[in-house]
């Protein structure tokens, strides 16, 4: 497997930075309260798997991904013939783009309930009168949010990919009029990897946004409603912004990678991508912006949670 593209690209820096941060945080958590945090994570797991929300959200997510990948080529007037099947990269981009967008809302709802739900039910006092610190509990909840976001992302990618390869071909992109190759298979594969790599951090960001809102109130219903409305509003408004301004908002990056892949699978996009890539890519904005938002959301949420008097 040729990893040259990987070594040369900013994705390497992105992944190493994130991995480094995760490792440092994990190491710090392990030193400070590792076993306690892990036990709390296990407890959160019990709650998560016992809730219908998990299964309903997976079901909706899968349905959304499949529907989007199936319907969008039809809506754009594309047809399969005996000689040409759909391009798998295009189908993948359709499914993953919509799936990631849906997953971000699922995560906002889930994270919105994470803390506020404990206050709502009063179970926060049960947890905080055990031999655990508030930092342990906060870390455990964040870890659960990360694990859940990762799981949903894997579901989205897995379902989109398998549908795409079952319906289409993972080959080059052809110009059907002039019978020339517009994008090679290697170029497309590389673009798909980029898209997958850059779309995860914004998803985590959406989850941490939910965590922040969850700490602002002690009612889970209010927290979820506020988080979803605020997120939807942000989603809507950034859509009207100038492309350069839009790049300052983390939610733009949720679907941008898959959008680039789609354009390339249709022969569009920045010429020579990669190695000449979109500005947001070359400047590592896809990494910097979500990381900036993530740290802002989490540090604020942590500060609020630490200072709170538990009256539940």
């Amino acid at each position, binding site marked *: 497997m040729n990893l040259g593209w990987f070594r040369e690209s900013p994705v390497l820096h992105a992944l190493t930075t994130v991995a480094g941060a995760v490792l440092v945080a994990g190491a710090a958590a392990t030193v400070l309260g590792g*076993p*306690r945090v892990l*036990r*709390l994570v*296990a*407890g959160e797991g*019990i*709650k998560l798997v*016992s*809730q219908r929300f998990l299964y309903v959200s997976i079901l909706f997510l899968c349905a959304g991904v499949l529907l989007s990948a199936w319907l969008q080529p039809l809506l754009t007037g594309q047809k399969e013939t005996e000689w040409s099947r759909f391009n798998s990269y295009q189908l993948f981009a359709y499914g993953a783009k919509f799936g990631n967008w849906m997953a971000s809302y699922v995560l906002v709802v889930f994270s919105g309930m994470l803390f506020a739900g404990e206050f709502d*039910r*009063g*179970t*926060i*006092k*049960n*947890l*905080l*009168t*055990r*031999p*655990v*610190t508030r930092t342990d509990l906060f870390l455990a909840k964040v870890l659960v949010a990360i694990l859940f976001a990762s799981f949903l992302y894997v579901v989205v990618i897995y379902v989109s990919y398998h549908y795409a390869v079952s319906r289409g071909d993972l080959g080059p992109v052809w110009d059907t009029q002039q019978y020339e190759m517009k994008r090679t298979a290697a170029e497309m594969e590389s673009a798909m990897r980029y898209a997958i790599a850059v779309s995860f951090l914004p998803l985590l960001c959406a989850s941490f946004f939910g965590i922040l809102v969850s700490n602002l109130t002690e009612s889970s219903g209010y927290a979820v409603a506020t988080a979803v409305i605020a997120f939807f509003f942000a989603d809507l408004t950034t859509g009207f912004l100038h492309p350069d301004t839009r790049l300052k908002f983390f939610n733009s990056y949720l679907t941008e990678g898959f959008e680039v892949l789609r354009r390339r699978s249709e022969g569009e996009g920045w010429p020579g991508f990669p190695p000449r890539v979109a500005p947001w890519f070359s400047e590592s904005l896809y990494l910097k912006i979500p990381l900036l938002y993530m740290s802002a959301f989490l540090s604020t949420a942590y500060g609020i949670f630490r200072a709170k*008097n*538990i*009256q*539940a």
Partner: protein
Amino acid sequence: MAPILETRGLSRRFGRIQAVQDVNLEIQEGDFYGFLGLNGAGKTTTIRMILQLIRPDSGEIRMFGQNVRKHFIEIMRKVGALVELPAYYPYLSAVRNLEILRLASGGVPRSRIDECLELVGLLPRKHDRVGTYSQGMRQRLAIAMALLSRPKLVILDEPTNGLDPHGINHIREALQRLNREEGVTFLVSSHLLHEVEITCNRVGMIREGRLVVQDTVQNLLSRSSGQVRVECEPKASAVKIFQGLGLEASESTDGSILLAAERSRLPEIHAELVRAGIRVWSFAPERMTLENFFLSRGS
């Protein structure tokens, strides 16, 4: 020996309301300590501060001889608590609810879950969703949660809320057994004064945020109630005599007369009644109960 739980100058203000002021609790190992007070007197706020759920404005809390703030983890391994209303995950069974807390506590064997559920009488319903439980069953579950980690000190805020008389009796006996046989120390806030009287060996009474009394139940009950119950005929003449002696008398619902008088004056009063030809069936100082004491000092 250092108290198992001690607060020094504990104070907390919420806006303009001084919820707790300069509270100095002292609970010795093996105590069954009753924490009494009217609604809003500051009991729950004090308990929340002890458990670090609310930060005090000033004062120090020590448990097992250590500062709670500095040694929270170490101390909380030996403490179990139920604060105000029972809290649970309604979509989970009792076992699952306890499993989450078992994991959070660390070092508690899984078999302890069944032990606790048996102790509170919930074993037959352990796999049912807690959302389907009655209020009394939820209260029992909350007590099981507090006892899960075999704590040396148990803090229970209104533990018998929502329990029927049978349930109260069951829980009381279970807690007393733990106190007697395993030496578990209890701090129990309650409105059921009779329960406190028969269960606790020491009480603290809080009023408008201040601890007004802290003593053994025995000492409190040995104090005179300052009242005498008199059964006599004719009552009207007796009341006139009492008024003539400058005493306050009121007719009780059972037909007897309640007389407010100092113990030293009782022979004189009795002699006056006999001299006036009033037939006296009964002339007895009222026994001091915690309820009498609470009503006279707590309100």
